[in-house]
């Protein structure tokens, strides 16, 4: 085809060179701090079999309720198990369950939120009334009730968190899509003859998913706390598998004499929560649209 236009010379060619994610992430303090904290936690959890000095379930009945020492860094519990080793193995379980538990509600909530926001009408009414019902119950009450009915165990924790957690994502996505679909580029995409599915997936979702990702970071904290709480209540990960929640619960009866049994798992939960919050904050800064 013939060339129709001579190149232009009078305009500035590039208005502003946008600095992308990869040029900026290391200059966002909260993101880096969160990344370091979570990085260390995940690494330690992954390397637990290498780092842990003892088998987490090995009971040494000659060494009950020892204080911290060079042999047992964080002491031993009432069955003579090494607390440090148990904490490392607990991190494996708790982090894995928390990270996985966030994925299912993320996906389900995103899909339903998109449908509800994009199509409106009856689809919207249907999904949102469902959301209202779930939201009407306090988070923990619903989770605990569901796990109680389904029975303890990892699989049922996933199910309970998914059934309760998707509503937040659906709400976020619906709101974002409602705003974004009024933009002219959506009209332009429709004018270009693309299907609804394509418009949602290729044009709308990349513009609105940021909020859901940022929320997912704080949602992991929430899920971690839920898992720990369930463990504390005896509904979570079942003994003898180590889990921070059960460790806190088991240590409770010795709190006045052996504070370290409950305190160290509690501190671990706080540190992971802090790390994820920082990571979420940093991500929100980094991914915020111009």
């Amino acid at each position, binding site marked *: *085809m013939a060339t129709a236009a001579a190149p*232009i010379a009078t305009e500035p*060619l590039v208005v502003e060179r946008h600095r992308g994610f990869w040029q900026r992430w290391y200059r966002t303090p909260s993101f880096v701090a969160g990344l370091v904290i979570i990085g260390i936690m995940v690494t330690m959890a992954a390397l637990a079999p290498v780092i842990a000095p003892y088998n987490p379930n090995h009971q040494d009945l000659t060494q009950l309720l020892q204080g911290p020492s060079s042999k047992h860094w964080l002491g031993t519990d009432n069955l003579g198990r090494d607390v440090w080793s148990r904490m490392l193995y607990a991190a494996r379980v708790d982090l894995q369950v928390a990270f996985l538990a966030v994925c299912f509600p993320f996906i389900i909530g995103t899909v339903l939120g998109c449908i509800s926001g994009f199509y409106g009408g009856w689809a919207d009414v249907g999904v949102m009334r469902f959301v209202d019902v779930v939201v009407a119950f306090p988070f923990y009450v619903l989770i605990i009730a569901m796990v109680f009915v389904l029975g303890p165990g990892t699989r049922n924790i996933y199910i309970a968190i998914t059934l309760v957690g998707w509503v937040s994502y659906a709400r976020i996505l619906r709101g974002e899509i409602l705003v974004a679909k009024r*933009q002219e580029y959506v009209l332009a995409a429709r*004018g270009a*003859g693309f299907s609804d599915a394509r418009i949602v997936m290729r044009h709308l979702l990349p*513009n609105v998913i940021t909020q859901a990702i940022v929320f997912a970071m704080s949602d992991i904290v929430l899920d971690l706390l839920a898992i720990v709480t369930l463990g504390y209540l005896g509904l979570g990960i079942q003994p003898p598998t180590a889990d921070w929640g059960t460790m806190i619960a088991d240590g409770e009866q010795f709190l006045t004499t052996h504070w370290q049994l409950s305190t160290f798992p509690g501190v671990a939960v706080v540190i992971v929560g802090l790390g994820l919050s920082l990571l979420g904050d940093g991500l929100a800064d980094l991914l915020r*649209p111009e």
Partner: protein
Amino acid sequence: MSEPLLEVRDLSVDIVLSRGTIHAVDGVSFALEAGAAMGLVGESGCGKSMTLRGILGLLPRTGRITGGQVLFEGKDLVKGGQRGLREVRGGGISIIFQEPMTALNPVMRVGDQIAEGPRHHLGWSRSQSRARALELMRMVGIPDPERRMRAYPHELSGGLRQRVMIAIALSSEPKLILCDEPTTALDVTIQDQILKLLLGLRRDLGVAIVFVTHDLAVIAQTCETLAVMYAGRVVETGRVEQMFREPHHPYTLGLLRSVPDFDAVRDSLEAIPGMPPDLASTFSACRFAPRCQFAQDDCLAGEVDLHEIDGGRTVACLHDDACAAAASADPVIARV
């Protein structure tokens, strides 16, 4: 004459607002030959954009086509529903919007946005589509296209963005491009470049163009035929040079007289007195009569429909001869 590429017959569009139903487009008709360029002018809110959107079925949520036909290559797009529309969107007809910043997806590289059409509509492979995008970017005069392909819309200037929009509009090889005020958001030097580009593309590719604008200078540069809209209706159609030389509708005359001009210095610009009517109301008289200097009692008797006059023109005015005479006595052609 052969069968027109696009024929709009008696198109009506209603928009439901909280304060009532607006008859935004009320029985608009026009036709366009393949490869032709037509202008659609009128002041803000006269229904010209809604006419354009109605053609492609891109009305706002509360908007609805209440009557008429849109025939594209003989097929009625109104009756065809969403299926028929999707077939014609992009492939047969594409659309360019006024504001290139908001009409481009902010988080998609412009190369991908241009390549999406060929890939999706023409079923091309990824590399073919990319090559096509590169070719199109070169064709619309984007310098250094290999690098610009990877840019996001906010990294480009307004003129470049509009060129990207044009490249997207061309990407699926349409026969007709609808331009909704394509140059309004740009400054005049860039505006001139974009118009020249569109004209060049029309000449080289034989694509027909409908220009919606309120800028008569744009029409003078680009179009052969013109339809003037007022309050949701077409009030005059014809060839551009005839209509500029001898407008038969007082509104067309008013529009022409309100264009500032450097060649023929006048004491002051003549504005059209009054305001356009509320389109939510019903009309029982000529819609322009309250603002019209030629209006007489018979103008209030009922709505005035288009009738044919010499030279294949149509006009919706009972006293069009008086208007034409006034226009000849004080020509406006020098001003545009």
